[in-house]
Structures are given as C-alpha cells and as structure tokens.
C-alpha cells in the first residue's frame, strides 16, 4: 500500500514534468513571421560604447546601431558611401574631404553632422576613456601626440569641420587604407547630447548605452539589453536608408558555448550561429552541406619565434623549423575545419594582395639548413619549449608539430601551456622560445599584417628587426603613388619577413557558421563583415533548419 503511494507520487511528478513541456513555437518560426532575425553572437557584449569595446560580438551589435562615414561593399570590401555620400582625396593622399548626406539622422531625429564626427573623434582620443583601439586614429595628423598628451590642443589634430556637412581630415602620411578604418567601431560617431546627459564625455561606463538612453545613427536602434540573455534592436525609422532595411529587428543571443549554440540552431532557435563545434563540421559537410557556411577569414594562425634566444637567432634554424611543418596534414587531420595551410603571412587575396609563397614543406632541405647551422640531425640542439595558451585545439596542433620537428629534424621540443593572461604576459616579456599566436586583421589591407613586424612594434614581440623591412613598411609603401606599386613594395617586405622567419605561418583561419535556409542576403567575405540592412527572412520557411525531423535526429548525431 505504501509503495503504491510512492509510485503514484513519482508518476505524478513525471507527468508534471512532461505537461510542462509543450515545445511552443521556435524562434525561427516566430522570427520569420515577424521579421526578427535571431543571431548567435558568441560572448555577451562587454559594453555598447564604440570607444570602449574591443570584441567581435560588440562589433556585430554596433554595426547595427551606428554607422561610420564610409561603409564597405560586402562583396568586394571596397569603400562604399555611409554617412558620407562622397569624398575627395588630395593628390598627395593626405587630405580627405567628406561630404555628409543631408538626410542622415540620429534615432531621435537629430541630423548627423560633421560636428558629431569631430566631437566623437575628440572623445575617442581622451586618454581617461581608456579606448584600447585609439591607435586606429594614429594615421590622422597629431592624433597619437594628442592621445599621449604631447599636444593638449585638439585643434592641432587633423580633423576640421568645414561646415555642417563637410569634414576635412588631414593625415600625417598618405594612408591608402584610411577609408577602410572608417568602418571600424572606434571611428563611429556618438550622440553628444546623450552622452553629456549621462556623464562626462570621457567617463567610462556611464549609463548612456542602456536601452532607452542609447541614441544611434545606424539602421537599427537599441530596444533591449539584458546581460547574458539578449540584445534586441529594432528598425530605426530615421535611418537615411530605411527603405532598404528589410528586417524589423534583430535579437543578438549570447552563445558562449558552441555546443549549446549548435543545439539551439538545430532546434530552430537561431538563424545564424557565431561558430560551429569542430567535431560537427564533418557531419554537416556530409549531411547538410547547404547549412554550413565556411569561407577564408582575414586572420592567421602562426608561431612566433623568439629571435633573442641564442639557438633561434640563426635564421637557418627558423627556416628549418618552418619547412618541416606539414601544413596540409595539420589542416586535414588536426584542425579539420576547412582551413588552408599558410605559406605567406598575409592571407591570400587581401583586397587583391597575394604575397609570394615564402617557403614550402621540404624536410630534406630543412635538415640541410639545420645541419648548416651546426645541428646535423638535430644533434646538440637544445631542448626547446613551445608555448601555447591553454586550449584543446592549440594542444593538438602543438603535439602534431612537436612530432614533425622530432621526426624530420631530430630536435626535442617540450610543450608548455599557460592560462591566457599568463601566456600574454610571457610573450610580451619575451619569456618564451616558440609561442603560438593568432592575428585577425583590423582592416582589409596587407598593412595590418605587416606593420606589426617593424622594429620595436608593440605586436612584434619576437625581437626581430630589419632595417630594409622598416623602410619599406614605414617610408616607401605609404608614399607609393598607386596601389600596384604599393603592393609591390609590400610583397618585397613580406619576402624579407618570410626569409628571416621570425614567425612561422601555419594556416589561414576560416570562418564557419550555420545558416538557416530562410536567411537571405548574406555575402561571404574574408572580414566576416555583415551588412544587416541587406538581410531578409523568407517567411514561407518555418521551424528547424532540416527538412524533416528524422533527418535532423540522425543526421547530426
């Protein structure tokens, strides 16, 4: 009798659970009906102040909320009109005159003027604000000196308002990629009256970015921001190009955990994911290739070599190390995400620039080089440590390369992993022999990959220095008369870099995401740059990304 009671209780409890779970309509179904895009956005945004934030998730949200002077064509990545409807560049390449469109409006109806840009850029350069991307302004005349407080008077910085709708920008050197920078969030305008209403211009983290307060000039406006839950944006009726905007809104979902994100996608909660778990790539490729969007990304995976380390100061040793890595094998058997092996430092076809292949996988030549350097068959080569930041992916690659070096060169490599911040500290202090690294371009131009290797550059960290390289990157390339000449100089510089090998390129990153078939208007490009106003949803398509249920259950697991 008693056991009957308990059985009843347990059964009741189970019933309670099951009745509580009527699935309801999925986000994709309601989203397609109401024109709301559900976007998996990686980690939660730290802030929504364009002059404070530093990450990719913030970038996605801010390009929906704000708009710079110049946009990019998502197909070619060439500059396209934004708030500025046209611009002129002086013949010496130093003076840019922007003509702002008269119908550009803030989301409260105020006109967007040249004063807004001048003030915003002044704000972005206030040291107290702690803008970690302030260096994006450095091509502008005296911007660096102003940030470092060597110049106190902002009128000496090369930004000048000619009239309400004309802005003149003077650069210290011709900077052919300057227009590319204008689409970076650190150069976005912010609404002065709003910021001043909620605190000082250079106050970090005032309340102006909260929903209800935020005033932007982008195609969408902020309606909701719940930490770790969602950021909602709705179509901005004042946006100058509102007629083009097809979506009624976007919900940015924080999706830190890629496995969970993939499950959300599969159950119809997301239209677009920020990433995809590595072990799922092959499954999608096999069963649902139409959902997997994968294309090269403007970033690379490489190893830094500490050229101050005695046995690594000989470039033949560094070349030998590079030539004994089988990049093809790494991308096919280790990373397995459709990456391509890198034999140049700048990813191929960066706005039309492709460097000459700098090295190849050639174990025999590598052995020879190592022997020439005094280590025949690796004899006498000191045990060398390979440092990487703790991550399963980095470990696998490191283990593979450790084996290759041992097999082809006979050298002994030990592995050391460190927590991210500790690792950054070690690399920054030159406290390493060989260290894993990655670099994502800030803009599409080879310069973002090459100017980091100048002598003493903040991102160099290898101790490498070459006078000709510095001259090419700092003096000759910027003053080149046209793109072709400039790319030639860049090619020469990159050839020096790849001959000297302070870094070993391993593979070019690849951007991977899952895209629901109802989402239209995405244009793949190496920047992973999305123009939200071009996106639309096919309302005839409902629910999960797969055609039928059985398919979904078995296809992916």
């Amino acid at each position, binding site marked *: 009798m008693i056991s009957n009671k308990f059985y009843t209780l347990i059964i009741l409890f189970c019933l309670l659970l099951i009745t509580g779970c009527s*699935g309801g309509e999925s986000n994709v179904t309601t989203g397609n009906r109401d024109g709301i895009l559900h976007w998996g956005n990686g980690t939660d945004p730290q802030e929504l102040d364009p002059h404070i934030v*530093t990450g990719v998730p913030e970038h996605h949200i801010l390009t929906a909320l704000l708009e710079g002077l110049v946009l990019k064509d998502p197909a070619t990545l060439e500059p396209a009109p934004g708030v500025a409807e046209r611009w002129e560049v002086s013949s010496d390449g130093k003076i840019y005159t922007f003509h702002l469109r008269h119908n550009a409006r803030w989301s409260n109806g105020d006109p967007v003027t040249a004063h807004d840009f001048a003030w915003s850029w002044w704000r972005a350069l206030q040291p107290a604000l702690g803008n970690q991307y302030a260096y994006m302004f450095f091509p502008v005349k005296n911007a660096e000196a102003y940030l470092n407080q060597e110049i106190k008077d902002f009128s000496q910085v090369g930004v000048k308002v000619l009239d309400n709708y004309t802005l003149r920008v003077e650069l210290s050197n011709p900077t052919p990629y300057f227009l590319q920078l204008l689409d970076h969030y650190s150069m976005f305008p912010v609404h002065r009256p709003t910021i001043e209403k909620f605190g000082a211009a250079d106050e970090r983290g005032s309340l102006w970015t909260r929903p209800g307060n935020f005033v932007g000039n982008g195609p969408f406006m902020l309606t909701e921001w719940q930490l770790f839950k969602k950021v909602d944006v709705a179509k901005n009726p004042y946006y100058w190009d509102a007629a083009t905007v097809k979506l009624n809104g976007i919900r940015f979902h924080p999706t830190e955990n890629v496995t969970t994100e993939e*499950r959300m996608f599969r159950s119809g*909660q997301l239209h677009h994911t920020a990433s995809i778990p590595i072990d799922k790539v092959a499954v999608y490729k096999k069963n649902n290739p139409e959902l997997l969007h994968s294309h090269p990304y403007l970033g690379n995976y490489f190893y830094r070599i500490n050229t101050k380390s005695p046995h690594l100061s000989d470039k033949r040793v560094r070349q030998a190390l590079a030539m004994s890595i089988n990049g093809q094998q790494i991308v096919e058997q280790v990373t397995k995400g459709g990456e391509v092996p890198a034999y140049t430092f700048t990813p191929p076809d960066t706005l039309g620039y492709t460097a000459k292949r700098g090295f190849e996988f050639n174990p025999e030549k590598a052995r020879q080089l190592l022997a020439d350097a005094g280590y025949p068959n690796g004899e006498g080569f000191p045990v060398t440590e390979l440092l990487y930041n703790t991550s399963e992916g980095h470990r696998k690659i490191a283990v593979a390369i450790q084996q290759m070096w041992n097999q082809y060169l006979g050298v002994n490599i030990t592995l050391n992993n460190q927590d991210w911040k500790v690792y*950054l500290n070690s690399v920054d202090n030159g406290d390493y022999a060989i260290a894993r690294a990655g670099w994502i371009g800030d803009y599409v131009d080879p310069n973002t990959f090459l100017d980091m290797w100048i002598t003493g550059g*903040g991102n160099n960290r290898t101790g490498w220095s070459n006078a000709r390289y510095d001259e090419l990157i700092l003096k000759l390339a910027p003053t080149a008369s046209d793109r072709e000449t400039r790319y030639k100089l860049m090619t020469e510089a990159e050839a020096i870099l790849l001959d000297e090998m302070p870094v070993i390129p391993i593979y070019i990153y690849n951007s991977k995401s899952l895209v629901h078939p109802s989402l239209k208007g995405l244009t793949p490009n190496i920047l992973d740059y999305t123009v939200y106003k071009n996106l639309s949803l096919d309302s005839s398509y409902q629910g999960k990304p797969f055609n039928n249920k059985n398919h*979904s*259950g078995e296809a992916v697991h």
Partner: protein
Amino acid sequence: MFRFIISRVLQAIPVLLVVVTITFFLVRVAPGGPFSAEKAVPPEVIKALEARYHLDEPIWQQYLGYLNDLVHGEFGPSFRYPGRTVNELIAGGLPITAELAFYAMLVAVIIGVCAGVFAALKPNTPQDYIPMSAAMLGICMPSFLMGPLLVLVFGIWFEWVPVSGWGDLPGDKILPAITLGSGYAAFLARLSRGGMLEVMSQDYIRTARAKGLPEWVVVLKHGLRGGLIPVVAFLGPAFAGLLSGSFVVETIFQIPGLGRFYVQAAFNRDYTMILGTTVFFATLIVLFNLLSDIVSVWINPKLRHQLREGK
C-alpha cells in the same frame, strides 16, 4: 540559543576577512593584468585605465581602499563590463541562480527523499538496490555529462523541452533544474535511506506498529521525523553549494546566472569581480551553514538539550 547564534556570527567575521585578504593578494600575484590583450594597447591608455581603477596605487592602499568599500557594501566597478558595478552584476544574476538552485533543490528533495525512504522500507531487496544503484550513478555522473544527455534525449529527440535559455520559452527551466538537482538527489537518497533505516529499527516505531497504526502513518509521521535529521543538516550547505556550483549547468543551458561570473572573472583577471563573487559566496556558505545548524538544533531534541547543558 540566542548566544549560540551571536557567537557563530562573530566567528564568521574573521573567516570572511581571511577569505578577502587571501583572495585580494592572490589575484594580484597572478601574472597578466586585467588589461593585457593580444593586440598591443597604447601605453597611455593602459596608464589611464590603471588610474581609473586605482591599480597605480601602492598595493596596501588598494587593499585598505577595498576593505573600506566592502564595509560600505560596495564591491566596486567590474573591469570587464565597464558600464556595470559588481553589485549590479551580482544583483542581476542572483535571482536567476537562486531560482535555479531552488528548483534544483526541489528536484533533489522530492526525488532523493522519496527514493531513499522507498529503499529503506525493504532493505536489501530489489526495491532497495534499484533506487540506490540509480543514486550511485547520479552521484558519479557529472553535470557536464548529464546535461547534454538530457538535452539530447528530451530536447532534440523527443522535442519536449527547449535546449537552452531561462524563462524565454515554456518549459526551459526543467532540464537545468533536473541536471543541477540530480547529483544532490542521489546524495539525499543515500542520506535519507541511512536515516530511515536507523529510525525504523527503533523501539518507538515498533510501539507505533503495535498500536495498530497503518503502515503509511508509521512511516510518514513517526519515521520521517527522525529519519530526515541528517537530510536537514545537509540542506543548508547543499543550497549554498547549488548557488555557487551552478557554473557548469548555466554554461550548458545558456542561463544568465551568477555561476559563470565566478569562473570567467578569474580568466579575465577581473579583480573586483573575482573578489566580489568570492566574498559573496563565502558569506552565503557561512550563512547557510549557520541556518542549517540552527534548524538542526531546533528539530533535534538531543542537540537542544546539549546546548542548554553547555551554557
């Protein structure tokens, strides 16, 4: 009783001070600062950031400043979320984590106590072995395995419940609660089985049966009261454990709770956040231990007697 409570509260203060001090210095000893990044940041900006968060002051001054803030209930601004204070972040995540912990506790108590009592009624029979083996499995199975398994079965195959979220879609709180609660349910099952077994062999149970009371009255009225004392003693620390241990479940189900701060803050070297959450959780644990001690004293006549004798 009152003196007992007061003395326990006073004991908590030095404990918390030690926690604060150790954490404060440990996080600052760890290599890598909160503003180090892969892309080099202009030194002027780093300087400004350090000044903004008082990291340029001598460390003892920072420490005293922090203690002063703490006394005023301020945990300070978060380094990682520039627009938020640690108080705000904790206040935002706590209700969600508390709700999750509450449901998990409910799951744990209902399943655990039922299974334990049920097993204790017929010890060393299949009625005992089956729930107890299940409990052993539950204790052994970590939530990072349990969660995805449940999601796969109930979220993706049967499509009964959403795979993630909290309060967005109907039924999305079920799986996280079960995942988080199951380990504790298993533990509670073993505790209540042990407690019940001991009580059911007591003389007063035999008396109750001899009086001719129905078996369910014997179990529910006379047996449970004594049998659940070890369970009650465990509930306080368990609830604190659920609150501070929800990180894995919150990550699996994308729940905007407090647990994730705790781990991520350490990776980000978000000093104020690490300290804030540590102090907060330490306080909770002290508090819940105290509560469960009080309840134990209150329901256990033996302890109550000892306390009276002891004063």
